[in-house]
Every structure is written in C-alpha cells, then in structure tokens.
C-alpha cells in the first residue's frame, strides 16, 4: 500500500476526534470569551476580572489552596519516594501498588470517604471527643483545610511518581563514593541526592500545582459553598448563570495564570541553579 495513504488512513480517525472534539471547541470557546451579549467583540469578560476584587480574591484563594497542597504532597511524598528508592523489588512493588491503585478509583468516592472521616460526627472528631481532648467538634471540613486534605489525597501519587523516577535514575555508586570520601549521611543527602533529584521535585511540584489549580470536584465536595475557587465559579457561570462568555473567560484566566506562575517558578529555580554552578 502507498505509504502516504496508509498514514492518512491510520491517523485520520483519531485526528477527526481531536479536531472535532478538542481543537475546534477550544477555538470556539476562545472566540466566545471575547464576545458580549450581542456577540460583538469585547474585552469586558477579562477586564471585569481586574476591576472586581471579588474575582481577584477567588483567584488568590485558588492559588493559596494549591500552594498548601503542593507543600503537603511534597512533605509527605518525598519520604515515600526515598523509601521506594531504597526498598527492594517486592516491597517496592507493594508500595507502588498501594499508592497507585486508589488513584484509579473515582475522586468522588475518595472524597466521600474523607467526608465520613472528617465530618462533625466523623471518625476523627468522635475519637478526639471520646478521649476528652476536645469539647466541640473540630471544623475539618467545608473550609480550606478540608479542600487541602482532599487535594493532597488526590495528587500525592503524582508527586511520589515524579520524585521516585528521578531517584531511581541516580547511580547508587555516587552516594557510596561520598561516604567513602567521609561525608556523613546528611551531607551526602544534601550534596548528592537532593541536587540530583531536583528535576523530579520541580516536575512534581509544577504538576501538583497545575492539577490543584484546575480541580473542581474536591473543592465542590469538601469545600462546600464557603470555599469557592476559580473552577467552581467558572462552572457556576456556565451551568447556573448561563453567562457562557464570562465562564469561558474565567476558565482561560485560570489557565493563563497557572501557566504564568509555573513558568515564573521554573525560570526562578533554573537561574538559581545556574548561579550556584557558576559561583562555585
């Protein structure tokens, strides 16, 4: 068969889906975000964002919640990745399975489990009350804390994967060399292991940040009506208020600010690393 024809026949079905369900709709959405009620060109959907402190406040809350999630997943995920890198075959397999399998079960269900644990009559509050440590149930849900807990649970697997992959790639003889040269465990960690797995840390933090910024289900279920983040208000504009141009613009503003922050972050870290290299 003709090579050109084969390529076209093989890729066409998938390309049609990609163009028809992804590329074209995205272009339409972008166009719509620049339209007013009379379908004339306008920037008002975007400028509204800067003028109205309500939206700025919501973006800031989205960023804050995402940063806390990054911090929590990093602090909890890093030791797990270290453990996986040091563990032997079978144990590593078990840990991998137990951290990845929950990830393949719907987020709605995982969030529901957390609601049962963290609620006012939930497991944690009941236990603390019985032990007499608290008199009133703690508010662990329907606030930013609840959202951060839910997001951490959802995204920690990504952080662990990113860091573990970079740790696996480190040649173990390097740490051995360092200890032969007399470096302590802690010194070896900070001068050999940490710098070498930095790419994994950067990949993990940017991924978890981006995912947290656009998460919808967890803020809706575990934040309730009090923790409105950007994806939630974009959803409300689209499905409840039916102001599609504004909803589209809010979604793009969210995507834009996420990309901007991630780019700034990676640039900042890269410059710092270059400085370190050239200064020493």
């Amino acid at each position, binding site marked *: 068969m003709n090579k050109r024809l084969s390529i076209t026949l093989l890729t066409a079905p998938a390309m049609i889906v990609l163009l028809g*369900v992804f590329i074209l709709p995205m272009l339409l959405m972008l166009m719509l975000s620049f339209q007013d009620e009379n379908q004339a060109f306008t920037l008002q959907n975007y400028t509204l964002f800067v003028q109205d402190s309500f939206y700025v406040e919501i973006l800031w809350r989205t960023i804050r919640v995402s940063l806390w999630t990054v911090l929590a997943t990093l602090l909890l995920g890093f030791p797990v990745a270290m*453990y996986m890198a040091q563990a032997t075959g079978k144990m590593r397999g078990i840990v991998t399975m137990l951290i990845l399998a929950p990830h393949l079960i719907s987020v709605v*269900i995982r969030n529901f489990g957390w609601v049962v644990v963290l609620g006012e009559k939930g497991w944690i509050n009941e236990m603390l009350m019985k032990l007499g440590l608290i008199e009133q149930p703690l508010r662990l849900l329907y606030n930013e804390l609840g959202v951060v807990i839910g997001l951490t649970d959802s995204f920690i697997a990504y952080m662990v994967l990113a860091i573990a992959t970079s740790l696996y790639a480190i040649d173990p003889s390097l740490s051995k060399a360092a200890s032969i040269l007399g470096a302590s465990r802690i010194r070896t960690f900070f001068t050999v292991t940490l710098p070498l797995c930095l790419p994994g840390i950067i990949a993990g933090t940017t991924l978890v940040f981006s995912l947290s910024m656009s998460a919808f289900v967890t803020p809706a279920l575990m934040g309730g009506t009090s923790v409105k983040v950007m994806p939630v208000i974009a959803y409300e504009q689209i499905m409840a208020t039916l102001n599609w141009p504004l909803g589209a613009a809010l979604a793009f503003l969210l995507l834009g600010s996420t990309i901007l922050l991630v780019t700034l972050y990676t640039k900042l870290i890269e410059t710092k690393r270059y400085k370190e290299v050239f200064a020493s």
Partner: protein
Amino acid sequence: MKKINTFGLITFFVLLLVNLPFLVIIPSSFTAAGYLAFPPEGFSFQWYTMILDRPEFVESLWTSLKLATVTAVLATVLGTLAAFALSKYKFRGSGVINALMLSPLTVPSLIIGISALLFFTRIGIAGTFTGLLLAHILISIPYVVRLVLTGLSTFDYTLEKAGYMLGAHPLRVFWDITLPLLRPAIVSGMIFSFLTSFDNVTVSLFLVAPDTTTLPLAIFTYMQETLDPLVASISAVVILLSLVFIVLLEKVYGLERLFGLNSQSH
C-alpha cells in the same frame, strides 16, 4: 538502618492515608443505622437493597458501564491505529501529530468540558450519549497512544518481515504476529480507557442530561444534598468494580510499568 525506618514509617502513614477512604466506606456501607457513622452500628445489607429502589443509581450505573465499554473499544482502536502510523513511518509532521494526540492531557478537564459543551450545543449533540461518548474517547486517546507507542518502541519489525517472506498476507501478519506481541500494551490501553471513562466527573459534568447521567456524577449530585449510608453502599459497588479492573491491569501490564516507573529502576 535508622534512616530507612523513618522513611518506612512515613510511607506506612501515607499509604494508610490514601487508602483510608476505602477502609471507611466499606464498613460504613453495612451499617444497620439510618445515618452515617464510623465505626458502623450493627450489620445489615439494607443499604445495598436500597440501591435497587433508586432508579437514578441503577440507570446511571448502566449508562456508565455502557459508556466506559464503548469508549474503551473505540479509543483503543483509534489510538492503536494512530500509534502504528507514528511508530512505523517516518514522515513530515509526525512530531506535530504525536504532540496533538497527547495534547488533551495537558489541558485541564474543566476547559475540555466547557469547550465541548459550547461546541456540542452549536451542532446539537449536547446532552446526548453520542456527545458524552466523543468527549470520553478524546480524553482516553492520549493514554492508548502513549501505551501502544511504548509497546511498539521495543517491537521487533523483522518478525513482520519474516512473516511476509514466508508469504503471509499483510492482514494475516498483523493478526498473527503484530497484534499478539502488542497485546499487553493494547489490552492495558483498553482497561485504562475504561477506568478513565468510568471515573470521570469533570468532563461529564458539562455534557450530561438527566437521562444520560453517569454513576460518579449521580453520586456527586446526591452527595451535595444528602449524606447517608446509601452513598457508602453505592460507592462500595463502584470500588469493587474498579478493583476488578485494577487487578486485571496489574496482571496484564503492571501498574509500575503503566505509570512509567520501572523504566530506569535498577
């Protein structure tokens, strides 16, 4: 050794944490009480029989299974064909096509959902099963393409050549040589697509109509109004169903390899 123990302790805690939701949901679903409590009070199957009285859950489970199955089959066929072209032929624009195939992964589901809603409304398929299906195929294709491409990267094309030289028809070569060798990659692509579709909320959210609601979405909606053991029992059903597929995936391909973890392990 002390270092390993500290890491091991934190690892144990994290593993407990990420699995806690399931450890809580399953016992809660057998409660005899009329409200959610952990530890559960008494033992009964009442909340399981109660599911059958709620048509919205039974129908949406049916919709979800149907949707996930059709999505898995179609996404696997489309993705596998495209991966074949990308791996077998060197051509101008293959880089662009490759990037395009993976691009739905880089855009938040929220935006995929909104843009599909806007476009489907224009062409009149918003709220239909077809619309939902197309969107689910779109978000599954990248996984299939990536898995099959990985499978093809270690594929020995001389085996195909040997088949041709022995006089086999190209279709027969494909069916008897190429496909069996790629089976793990293709089957895991199919299972992963099934789970992607079966779990999805954020894209479906914008595309369902009352009669095409999927199960995760039905639970999502129900949960925002009522929290009772019914959510626990229906969730337990979903967990069990998903577990079957997760175990299958682990057996066919290995979760480690699926998430690209052991490529460089020593």
